[in-house]
């Protein structure tokens, strides 16, 4: 049986976080009542053909191109892609066909502990179409309705080279891409709201072959999981066809999340869109000063941060990976580091306690009430022996809920650690007297018994005893 290799390229559409649309001043807010964020320009009304280019959207697209290591166009031009559809008000989409904003870029992705550079074919700026509504299936629906609020919302399309080989690689790439775009702040990248949409081109070829096979285009994957499952399914489906000696039909297929399969949507005809330069929008020069401004607005990207976290802070790769997986989280970590420069200890706390609470409450780090320096303060209190690690967890939960400072909580609740030997010795004496059996066990070499006795002292002090000191005092007492 022939072994096949999958060749996968992605086309990713990202809605930009601009306040207004690409060519008019209509709002881009998500979720408004249908057709309330429209004007003669974005509705394509006769006489409304006077687009005014949103420069912020251009800057965001350039920022994206730069972050993906692309060559940036010297002159920004727009073209019309002419086709008829009910969600396209003008009968053409304004896009960048002839001279995309960025070309020949790449994004490094860690695949199986190796770094693989995935080629970025191009990055371009374009306008979105409206949104169609049907009852059930488009063919059986008694009506078609269109909401033009989304029409002409600025999008950046990122087209990869066919460098991906597995569904897992595609998923990892997409996550890395999303993370990068969130870092540079050009989009909120919410797949469920459609502000990040991913289509995949998939073909198979015999392993070792250089030629590309017949590809299908896969659409409607609305989560990372769906991207993984959809591609996985499609590879399997094509493998089945080829192994039986069949041929793959070039077509657009729809991922159906519920049945977990891809369905044929339409055969891909040799599409001839009519592209030509927009006759209204004049070319815009990208002067060096503007480009520099955009370049300086790009923050440190995940890869460089990861490198710094592992090399400068000595964090294990896993910690660095988790902490840099979001710009906000990494910022939080580094801010807390200012007051508490114990790299690994802080990382442990953020990854277990903080992220545990965030996940349990389904919250983003940005909504966290605990300011980074206060987390640092709390950890300092542990190290100074003011509170025990265990008490600290209780204090932290309180901080997480109320946003109060750790010192205040400790003071008000009387949670300060007992490190006074005399006080503790009295309790140790009581405990030892009360549990002669455990004392005997300890003398018979059962080390577990010591733990039990420590626990009893902690219980007596409501957890406030300094556990290290209790340990020491107990051992001393028992050895007498």
């Amino acid at each position, binding site marked *: 049986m022939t072994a096949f290799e999958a060749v996968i390229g992605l086309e990713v559409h990202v809605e930009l976080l601009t306040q207004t649309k690409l060519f008019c001043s209509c709002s881009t807010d998500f979720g408004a009542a249908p057709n309330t964020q429209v004007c*003669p320009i974005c*509705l*394509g*009304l*006769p*006489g*409304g*053909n*006077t687009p*005014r280019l949103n420069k912020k959207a251009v800057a965001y697209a350039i920022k994206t191109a730069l972050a993906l290591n692309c060559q940036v166009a010297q002159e920004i031009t727009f073209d*019309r892609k*002419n086709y*008829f*559809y*009910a969600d396209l*008000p*003008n*009968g*053409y989409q304004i896009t960048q066909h002839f001279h995309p904003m960025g070309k020949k870029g790449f994004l490094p992705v860690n695949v199986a502990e190796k770094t693989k550079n995935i080629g970025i074919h191009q990055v371009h700026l374009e306008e979105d179409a409206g949104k169609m509504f049907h009852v059930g299936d488009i063919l059986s629906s008694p009506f*078609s309705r*269109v909401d033009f609020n989304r029409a002409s919302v600025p999008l950046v399309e990122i087209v990869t080279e066919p460098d991906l080989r597995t569904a897992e690689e595609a998923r990892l790439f997409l996550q890395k891409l999303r993370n990068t775009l969130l870092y540079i702040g050009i989009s909120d990248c919410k797949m469920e709201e459609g502000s990040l949409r991913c289509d995949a081109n998939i073909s198979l070829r015999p392993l070792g072959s250089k030629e590309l096979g017949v590809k299908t285009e896969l659409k409607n994957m609305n989560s990372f999981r769906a991207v993984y499952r959809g591609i996985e399914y499609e590879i399997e489906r094509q493998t089945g066809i080829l192994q039986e000696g069949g041929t793959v039909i070039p077509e657009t297929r729809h991922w159906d999340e519920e049945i977990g399969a891809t369905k044929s949507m339409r055969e891909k005809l040799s599409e*001839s869109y*009519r*592209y*030509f330069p927009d*006759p*209204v929008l004049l070319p815009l020069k990208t002067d060096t000063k503007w480009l520099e401004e955009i370049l300086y607005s790009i923050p440190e990207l995940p890869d460089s941060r990861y490198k710094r976290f592992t090399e400068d802070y000595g964090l294990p790769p896993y910690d660095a990976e988790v902490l840099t997986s979001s710009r906000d989280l990494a910022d939080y970590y580094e801010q807390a580091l200012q007051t508490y420069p114990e790299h690994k200890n802080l990382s442990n706390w953020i990854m277990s306690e903080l992220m545990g609470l965030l996940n349990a409450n389904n919250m983003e780090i940005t909504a966290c009430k605990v300011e980074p320096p206060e987390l640092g303060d709390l950890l300092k209190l542990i190290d100074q022996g003011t509170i025990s690690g265990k008490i600290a967890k209780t204090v932290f939960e309180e901080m997480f809920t109320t946003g109060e400072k750790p010192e205040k909580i400790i003071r008000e609740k009387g949670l300060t650690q007992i490190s006074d030997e005399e006080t503790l010795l009295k309790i140790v004496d009581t405990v030892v007297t009360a549990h002669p059996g455990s004392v005997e066990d300890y003398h018979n070499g059962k080390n577990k018994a010591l733990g039990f006795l420590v626990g009893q002292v902690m219980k007596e002090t409501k957890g406030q005893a300094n556990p290290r000191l209790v340990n020491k005092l107990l051992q001393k007492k028992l050895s007498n």
Partner: protein
Amino acid sequence: MDPANLSVQQITAKINKKELLLTELGAILAGRSKYAQKKLNLFISFDPQLFTEQIKKNEQSTQVNRPPLWGVPVAIADNITTVDQKTTCASRLLAAYQPPFEAQAVSLLQENGALLIGKTNLEEFGLGCAGNSSYFKPVKNPWDIKRTAGSGAAAAVASGLATFALASDVRGEIRQAASYCGVIALKPTYGKIPREGLIDSASSLEQTGILARRVSDLAWALQVLAVPGNNNPPAVKRPLYPEILGNIPAKTRIAVPADWDQAPLLEEGIKNNFREQLNKLARVGLEINYVTLPHFQYASLVATIIGAVEAFSNLSNLDGVRFGYRKEGKHLQEMYIKTRSAGFSSKLKKFLTLGGLLSTKKYYNSHFLQGQKMRSIIKKELLDCLQENELLLTPTTPCNAILLDSSPPAGEELPDPAAYYTAAANLAGFPSLNFPVSTNGLPYGLQFMAKKEDEGVLLQIAFLLEKEPIKWPIFALELQEV
């Protein structure tokens, strides 16, 4: 003096001195318009009540400093949007279309006191002058009702119903119509009059222009309309047009293409008359220089290629989905086909089909891109010529107004031979003016072109030639009896 033949300044002066009542002028114009409409079909929308209301509003105004167009009747071509009257582009697809906004040019006229007499008939989407594509039937020429007027705007100005009119120029339409009707027309520099609210068919060529019977009226209109805007950098310093008309530079050089008489369809009468006109200009001391413009002859072809591709795209919003005429179909595709098949004239469909074809991948390089290259060459040739000369002169049209029911039907050719002389100014974005002269009892025009932003010299040469007032068509005299 006939109150409908007053200049912009005369109207304002007479109103101020209370020698003219706007209601009086309004009543005269309303009566004549009604009569003219029956005879010439020059309006698509003419609403006497709306006109009267505007007059009332002006009369009741207590404004002290009256703007320059106070009480001046103007006509607007029906592809320029208005909020209180529909804007049809003479197309079945927009026959009932009421825009929710007003063209900036129209707002400027109203802010300056002008009275909108009506929306004038035109070729469908303002393309051409042959009188064969308006859904509302052709406009008849006030000089000879068997001939095309080119546009209702030109007919309205020639008949004295409007002091000036606004209309658009894609490949020379306002100049051609002015040539056919014997009036002055100026297509200004691309973008000079705001484009906002013009329903354009070919964006990179099309420009709103002005038709008038007097140079000074045209100058006043331009003064009001040429405001800084999107395509109109505020840095460009403009002269006060009405004040510079008499100051034509002593040594004005006029270039004439050496092969001007090689236009296909150039009529013998026009050829002879144009030669006489050249002699006349030389006699008043203007320098005539014969120049070689090897690619000028391709201008109409190139403008047709580019215009067709742009029009195909621009008019793709007319799909029956959101506004305008719709013919239902079993599915979306069928609705599109039925709507557009029934909605457009056969002439426009031919033009759009050409545009659709030339924008496919197959013809993009060989035709469209080639056309764009040729456009640059033509522009360069004109620019070089206008470095050495202040003006370029040709006839405006190779013939007088064509007959409306000629056989075989004229004016459907691609490229349009009537645009032979006019299209180059649209390709280059340069200003160009028609000045009317006549031959065989019918008007035709001299076309002058100047370099970008040089409208002043066009107005000056027209002012120089205007020593004798422009002739009225018989129809206008007939109207004065109404």
